[in-house]
């Protein structure tokens, strides 16, 4: 029988601005190539929560998008915090990364609360941090992406960054050389591009956590065709990574 894996795309209507659906596509396709049966749940505000959720993927949004989802996000906050505490892997990019933190204080002093899954808070600034970016991580190697945000995010003690950047003016806040945040199996990051296509190590880590949570172990059952296809995707990703890492900011 098929091993189903339930993948949730969180607020795809309103929080999906920089090719965030690319991350969903990559998780779905790689799960299938590992021999699992991924099932996609697009969860938008007001929808019923699916019976089972193994991975949650969320993206960035515009101010209006954030306003539309914020009430629902708070209504679901306990559920999301419980899932996070229980080890459900999640990837939150940009806008939802900020909302998964403690709060966001805008330039004019207004404070918007987050749902406190991640020990991080964000302060608005005039200057936008924007451009190609490579960060370094012990678990995932070099992470290749593109950042585009103006909020400066700072991590609380006990919250690890996703990776470290080399240069001032890049990463979470442009100052402490951190990028992203990790708590339990939740990753928050400003990296898009989209993130997962060029960083299959992160995609596979999310998949592995999800499968282990659900089935106790990660034992891909691949046909040779699936293996071959996976190798082809990874070879292309490797070339794309090399080019992206060499592009100017």
């Amino acid at each position, binding site marked *: 029988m098929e091993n189903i894996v339930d993948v949730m795309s969180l607020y795809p209507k309103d929080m999906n601005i920089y090719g965030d659906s690319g991350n969903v596509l*990559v998780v779905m396709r790689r799960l*299938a190539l590992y021999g699992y049966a991924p*099932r*996609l749940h697009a969860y938008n505000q007001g929808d019923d929560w699916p019976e089972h959720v193994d991975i949650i993927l969320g993206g960035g949004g515009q*101010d209006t998008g954030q306003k539309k989802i914020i009430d629902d996000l708070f209504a679901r906050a306990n559920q999301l915090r419980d899932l996070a505490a229980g080890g459900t892997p999640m990837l939150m990019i940009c806008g939802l990364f900020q909302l998964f933190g403690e709060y966001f204080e805008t330039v004019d002093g207004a404070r918007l609360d987050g749902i406190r899954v991640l020990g991080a808070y964000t302060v608005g600034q005039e200057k936008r941090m924007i451009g190609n970016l490579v960060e370094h991580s012990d678990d995932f190697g070099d992470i290749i992406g*593109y950042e*585009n945000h103006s909020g400066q995010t700072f991590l609380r003690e006990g919250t690890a960054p996703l990776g470290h950047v080399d240069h001032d003016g890049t990463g979470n806040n442009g100052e402490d050389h951190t990028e992203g945040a990790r708590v339990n199996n939740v990753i928050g990051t400003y990296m898009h591009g989209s993130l997962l*296509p060029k960083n299959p190590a992160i995609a596979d880590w999310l998949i592995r956590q999800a499968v282990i949570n659900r089935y106790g172990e990660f034992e891909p059952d691949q046909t040779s065709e699936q293996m071959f296809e996976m190798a082809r*995707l990874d070879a292309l990703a490797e070339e794309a990574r090399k*080019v992206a890492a060499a592009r100017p900011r």
Partner: protein
Amino acid sequence: MAQDQTQDQTEAQQQNHDDSAAANTPAPKRPWNAFATPLVGKAVREASRLLHHGGSAFPGKIAEDIDPGFLARTLGQLPLGVVLVSGTNGKTTTTRMVASLMADLGLKVFTNPTGSNFTRGVVSALLEQVTLSGKLDADIAVLELDEAYAVHFVHQVRPRYALLLNVMRDQLDRFGEIDNTARLLGHVAEATDGTVVLNREDPRIAALASVTPAHTKVQYFGLADDLKHFFPSDDDMATTVAVEAAEDAGSAEPATAATQSSASPASAPQSTDTLPADVTLTRVGDHEASFLISGESQPRTTTVRLEGVYNLYNAAAALAVVRAVQADARAAAVAPAATARTGSLAARVSAFAEADADALLDAVSRVTPAFGRGETIEVNGSEIQLLLVKNPMGFRLSLGSFPPAGHETMIIINDEYADGRDMSWLWDVDFTSLRETGVAMVSGTRAWDMALRLEYDRVTVEQTGTDLESAVKQFATANPGVPKHIYCTYTAMLRTRAELAKLTHVADAGVGR
């Protein structure tokens, strides 16, 4: 939450120009040296050309610096005013159409050449055209302006007409967010005195009617219901991964569910349907199109040289703005064309005002595609269509408009500023329509990103060639006689045309090669 960069820039620009022709300053200040601006500008232009400076906007910069009122003063003379065209997709094609329709109907039209859709580019183009005494020999100006520069422009010159096409995610690394882009276009609507022409089918654009001043007329162009599926709105883009399909299929077809994005993204009927459109595109056929004009009971059909359903929708937009100008010209015309002195302004305006719908559609049938917007170049007996792609919606519309069957496909993605630096946008395009034919060649700086994107949509890529010029040459000359599509980003388009020009004659598009 994300800080709005564009607005900051715009406000800064606003402050810089508060002292120049502001909205209610009818006569811009004329510096003592203004008489010399055309001469100096022309001299700089010539010098920069001789020195191969290359930047067509450079003379414009000099003119802006020494005489900031030049733009307002020169355009302010035009008897029929200024038509400003802006929006994310289709500016160039539509501007060209509006200018071409008006010229066809007898007006003297000034327009900015392709690619110079910022204020300085307009100033440079003006310098080329004005006489040494600063006169512009034109009845009306039709100007394409990038959203951010359109705001900069309207602080100097209030347009009489604004044609606002659409707001879509386009190089978010440059504009920030689409709602900001809509706000920028709102400033344009606010500054327009005659008629604002809006896309009824784009909710963010249609909503700009509410910020249009009370004395300004509002007109719409629209689509018949059965064509709307060609034009998903930006909000429909959000779910490229066919979520519904996956949910319907449950776990039955998990592997396909992820990538089987719907071929025709159905756009939910907008509540704007009830707004009356002045011109509606009702049908698209093989090189023909039908338009329903307000007040008529039946659509009119005409042949067209333009390709692609979105170009034909742009034609509806162009028709609507031309009709708005005509309405004002009719009201203002003092003498019928027949009695006015031949060749005089009065004669031209009267003839233009009197042109009927037949004449308008005839003029539409003569419009040719703009640079890179379905332009066809023949190499070795193969017709090669060049298709400029610069944002996910434009890419999707192009893929939907040019069926790949019977063609070979090449995609070239560069990542310079003009192309968009962030590759995220490729993941918002649904490429599954290329699955049957595959893609023969992928190239550009980000060739590997593109190849990876296609592979995730299970589209076979025959070859990835990172050297753009040799890849173009190989693709263009292979399989003579087989028609080809080349999708490319802006700088890739320039280099592709230059390479093709070595193989065959390529018309000068006015943007350099």
